[in-house]
């Protein structure tokens, strides 16, 4: 009997261990050109199949992610993208019509952040980005910045208490990312669309040092910048699990999902 019990317990432990690591995907877009070719039901099915615990979703043309959020509020965490169409990536920061759009959406819907927006260098100090930062401040929202170090610094200068999710960690070197994390306590990083931190399931030594030093400040992300890339979400989740398994379990879990859950998971429940 005792042997049977021990066997059952062992089997249970194996089963628990065999569960794939949940993933908090911090960089998902559901933009207008995806709505028809990846319908809401299919998008949600893809995320669930990939084992996503949650996903931070923004879409160029905000309606898309609102539909996703309505269909799967347990899965989708909405952030407000500053683009009405994806073609605005290079022009939004000079487009004053954007502000009434943001104000309108913020009045009507709940978000945890504004972004992902593309903003580099001194453009961060232009009037439109400044006004966007003020709106984030007013609504207590994260900024999801696809930016270089200079722009991140300028955003913090405008709002020292800002909380910034640094998209792709600026495609910068691990040493520079560590320097920024050391300097700014309210800075988090997503690792979307970069592969330099891990190869063949092994974590790069320089990146390992940064992950170990700042285990609470990183998240993974797939970056569905075209509709086709929705079908990469499961692949990306698997790829992430492989390299995360090269880190201590606790660190891996934090980067895989706990950081996203801790930082964003409860934000939608807060009172206005």
């Amino acid at each position, binding site marked *: 009997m005792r042997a049977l019990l021990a066997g059952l317990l062992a089997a249970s432990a194996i089963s628990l261990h065999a569960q794939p690591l949940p993933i908090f995907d911090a960089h998902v877009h559901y933009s207008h050109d995806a709505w028809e070719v990846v319908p809401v039901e299919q998008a949600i099915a893809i995320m669930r199949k990939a084992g996503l615990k949650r996903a931070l979703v923004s879409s160029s043309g905000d309606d898309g992610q609102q539909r996703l959020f309505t269909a799967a509020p347990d899965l989708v965490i909405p952030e407000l993208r500053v683009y009405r169409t994806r*073609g605005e990536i290079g022009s939004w920061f000079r487009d004053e019509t954007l502000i009434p759009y943001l104000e309108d959406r913020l009045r009507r819907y709940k978000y945890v952040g504004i972004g992902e927006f*593309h903003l580099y260098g001194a453009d961060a100090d232009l009037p439109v980005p400044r006004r966007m930062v003020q709106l984030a401040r007013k609504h207590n929202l994260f900024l999801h910045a696809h930016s270089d170090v200079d722009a991140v610094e300028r955003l913090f200068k405008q709002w020292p208490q800002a909380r910034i999710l640094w998209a792709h960690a600026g495609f910068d070197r691990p040493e520079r990312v560590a320097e920024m994390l050391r300097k700014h306590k309210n800075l988090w990083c997503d690792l979307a*669309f970069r*592969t330099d931190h891990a190869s063949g399931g092994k974590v790069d030594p320089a990146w390992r040092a940064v992950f170990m030093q700042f285990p609470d400040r990183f998240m993974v992300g797939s970056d569905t*910048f075209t509709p086709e890339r929705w*079908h990469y979400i499961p692949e990306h989740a698997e790829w992430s699990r492989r390299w995360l398994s090269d880190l201590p379990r606790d660190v891996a879990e934090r980067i895989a999902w706990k950081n996203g859950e801790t930082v964003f998971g409860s934000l939608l429940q807060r009172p206005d």
Partner: protein
Amino acid sequence: MEERRNGLRLAAAAAGLALAGAAGACVPSLEGTRLESPRFVLAFQGSPEVGKFFAVEIAVCSKSSAPPESIKVDAHMPEHRHGMNYAPEVKPLGPGRWRAEGLLLHMPGKWEFVFELRAAGKTDRMASGFQLSQFTQQEIARILQHGPWPPPAVRDPSNRVSGKREAIALGGKLFFEPRISGTGSVLCASCHVPFRGFQDARPRAFGLKEVERNTIAVVNAGFYRWYGWDGANDSLWSQSIRPLLDEREMRSSAPKVAQVMRTLFAKDYESAFGRKLPASDEEVLVDVGKALAAYQETLVSERTPFDDFRDALASDKPSDYPEDARRGLKIFVGKGNCSTCHFGPHFTNGEFADTGVPFFVAPGRVDPGRHAGIRKLKDSPYNLLGRYNDDPARSTATGTRHVELQHRNFGEWRVPSLRNVAQTAPYMHNGSLETLRDVVKHYSELREDRLHADGERILKPLRLSQSEIDDLVAFLQSLSP
């Protein structure tokens, strides 16, 4: 003629005036093209490029009389009977030195600089003719990189029968042999049709069923590093095995191929490989791939009008290469940046790129391109790291050893060669663009939002005019015989 003469290489023409070498009377204080009149010796330097303002440095010395009181500089096209659209200003720089500013030569062709030196109530006129190329030195350097053609033959060290006459003969027979297919009805040449440039003119290949991708011509295939739109194979022989085993293409198998070889080609095999057919069906299959590769290595495209022009440019000889193709070539190596990826004599860098072509193949299904290709390559028993590589040094396996799976590979496709491109419509990995004009328009109107913000920065919409599109198409057409 003399395409390359522009800028500092301006050649003085015999305009009724002797070169200063014979003067001896005085030497102007400037290195450059020298002209002589009865009273003066003039030297000048300038770097004209079509459509760009430039200046001309001038030095004059007097043989015996007083220095010139004024200098007038002009340029005109004798055959067109017109000059520039701008009047240059000549500024004195000091004793015997002037600088003419504000010159612009607005078209390529034969031009003539004219210098009029006025002194003591008389004017000495000197002229210097030259051929202005529409290409800058940098552009010429890029153009020359697209040749010479044909390149020297290469032997594949991973294939022990590469270049062997008997293997080439066997490969030629097998290429046109339907019985090696599972149904006995499909041959390599079903898709690689010789009179269609070894392609099939279909959007997507059709062996026994339609597949998702366009047929790539096998001409010049012996020179490549990766094979297939996704680079799932790293040798021509492994690529030759792939369609044999694909259910939708030739639906064959190692036992089927081995049986055909034993029944029909045993002697040919022995001549080609110097041994009897092995007992292992898979070994036979691999050797069939190698014989097919040996044959395909002999398929090299012919010289083209572009090659003639390129060689003329290299040797400073005249060429009747059409003007529209020249203008298209200028876009190709210039503002179009096409030659960055379509590089070298083969007009491809041999690698992979996402150029914004959609890659859904059916609702809910995508063709992952290079991403899946790397996976297949690594898993393939026929890759260059495997036991079937005949080269013990694995000298051509570096790419296979080091290729790295990256997120950006999802939706990347091999940069195709542009040789014979006019014969291989339709275009792109899925045959989604019908004509060369459609391809040029794709790049002209490129949807940047389909590319990652941190992706390849040279991919910008070219915003070409209709005439520029015509020119680029004319150039692309000149890459076929």
